[in-house]
């Protein structure tokens, strides 16, 4: 039984860390500014296309390309914040939802118009290796490694740097942070940029594994919501754990049931957590 389960669980954990990274972007933005970012999916798709363009256009190794995509994501996020989110930062939840939803629709529309909805593929392989009953593909392992590295860097940034501490301070209490001289607008813009950058990096890593279209971000945005609810809204570590859990579910369910049951079980879990433990497994920590 273990031999049957192990390969799927390993695959699940490896992809789960990447899901977790995407969800971290969503939860960081919510934690700092109480905005549920509905443009998350299109940012993931932008990351996918960024890596694809650098790989096919400039022949850049996709795992190097991800670093450029992270920087571009940061800039794009700050821009979206300035254009759409800044005005509604103090408005009720619905305004933030609608503003980011509008950004999403614009980006999707532009993407469909100029990039079409045809599938793209980053044709890059690192082969595979076997460890007992488990065969791991190189790209999956490298993508997971990159996601873990970015997670580590994010934690280092949030806990070891002044800017990171300011983000945490604004997340805890924006008014109090402003009173001690923290310029909250700058912090909010940076947080939105970071959240977007994480989504773009996750998208870029996913692009090294699977084919994608302009509309593929939506699938991973939905997964991000499930993960964020699992881990606790506003808690980046919870998002990582939630991501791994979701990956495990995706790996384990097809062993016992047909793979088409995976979304049913994922969303049943989503509803169950909302009913039984609405604060998520790790609770919201701001």
């Amino acid at each position: 039984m273990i031999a049957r389960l192990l390969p799927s669980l390993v695959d699940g954990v490896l992809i789960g860390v990447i899901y977790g990274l995407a969800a971290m972007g969503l939860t960081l933005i919510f934690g700092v500014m109480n905005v549920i970012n509905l443009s998350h999916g299109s940012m993931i798709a932008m990351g996918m296309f960024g890596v694809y363009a650098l790989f096919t256009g400039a022949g850049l190794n996709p795992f190097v390309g991800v670093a450029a995509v992270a920087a571009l994501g940061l800039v794009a996020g700050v821009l979206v914040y300035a254009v759409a989110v800044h005005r509604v930062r103090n408005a009720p939840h619905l305004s933030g939802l609608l503003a980011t939803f509008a950004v999403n629709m614009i980006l999707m529309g532009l993407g469909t118009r100029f990039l079409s909805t045809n599938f793209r593929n980053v044709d890059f392989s690192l082969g595979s290796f076997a460890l007992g009953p488990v065969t791991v593909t190189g790209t999956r392992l490298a993508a997971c490694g990159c996601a873990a590295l970015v997670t580590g860097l994010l934690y280092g940034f949030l806990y070891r740097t002044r800017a990171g501490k300011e983000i945490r301070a604004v997340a805890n209490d924006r008014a109090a942070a402003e009173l001690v001289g923290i310029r909250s607008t700058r912090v909010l813009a940076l947080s939105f940029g970071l959240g977007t950058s994480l989504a773009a990096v996750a998208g870029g890593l996913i692009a090294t594994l699977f084919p994608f279209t302009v509309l593929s971000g939506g699938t991973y945005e939905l997964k991000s919501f499930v993960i964020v609810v699992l881990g606790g809204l506003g808690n980046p570590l919870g998002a990582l754990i939630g991501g791994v859990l979701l990956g495990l579910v995706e790996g384990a369910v097809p062993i016992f049931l047909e793979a088409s049951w995976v979304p049913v079980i994922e969303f049943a879990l989503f509803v169950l957590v909302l009913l039984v433990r609405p604060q998520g497994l790790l609770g919201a920590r701001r």
Partner: protein
Amino acid sequence: MRRTLPLLACLFLASCGKDDSASKGQTLLVGYTASLTGKLSVESTRQTQGLSLWVERVNAAGGIKLADGRVLKVASKFYDDESNQDRVQELYTRLVNDDHADFLVSPYSSGLTSSASVIAEQYGKVMISAGAASDSNYAQGFQHVFQVYTPASRYLVGALDLVSATAPDAKKIAIVHENDKFSSDVAKALDAYARAKGFSVVLDEGYDSSTTDFAPFLNKVQQSGADAILGGGHFQDGSTFARQLAEKGVKARFLALLVAPPEPGFGELGTAALGVLGPSQWEPQVSFTAEAAKAAGVAWFGPTAAEFVEAYKAAHKEEPSYHAAGGYVAGLLLEEAIARAGTIDGEAVRKALESTDLFTFFGRSKFDASEAAHGLQVGHEMVLVQWQKGPAGKLLKQVVWPPQGRTAEPLVR
């Protein structure tokens, strides 16, 4: 004189009208949708290119010649359906009501065609279904839809025959297929055929059309110890499945996938494509000839395979796949039926199609005219291709089944 002038004028106008139609001829409009974008864009673009080539060539030859001497020019109108079933219904309704299409050609894929078939039937328009193999579409009682392809139920049975003949000890098969109408029809027929032939079906499972991560299936297939993996769906998922199977190093002696392998672009997968089998409706190497048609006692119509390949290559700078050939033949079958009916009256052409039995470069075409399976293709036969290494190490598509049409011996992976 006052009375005779208007009468003369009327007669003059009437004669003008008559002369006009006789000299310029009529133009008939063929309407269809193409998936220029979305999941089915690769196959659909080929089909559209084939159909457009037919329109160009039939017009360049003067048009469709009717028995009474009239000559019909062909115009076509199409929209992008985005590989989306809802768009198909909307667009076919527009083609019939706003564009006044005389005849319809189906979109690519069984799923989209089932939507278009409802509209064709509702408005009583003859529709040639070009790239739609699903059997179930022809069990709905539709009277106006005629299938070009060999039906889905016969797609992969040849692959199993090849497995039996090449490696009689290979008894375990895994069926992993897309969960759409066409691939499910193929898998159902394949499962029944495999069990009847004494194979053990160790895995039979469908995947969602939007699947991009095949890891769960790869692990299951690997653990099942299958000798042959059969299934797939369309180009996008099939090529992804083949790539991930190779990347993960899943060993199976045979891998046969639907739709993707016959497409020339499949060879770009490199080693992941090596040894992959695929059922094909037509290949350039398989040449049906007028002599073969005569020997079978059936009429021949249209260009030879060499002429089609040459014209297609000149227009599109690539080898035609069976999707391209299917698009061309859809036009050709319509042309022959209109010419035989001697009119563009839908009912007369429908009757002519019911009695169609002819050979083209694509092979034989004959439609079931019974109530139970009206429009189902009963004349056409498929071949099986395999990607093999050529003399210069380049991957080449070879015909490996049936044995009498073989261009190379089958390769066991």
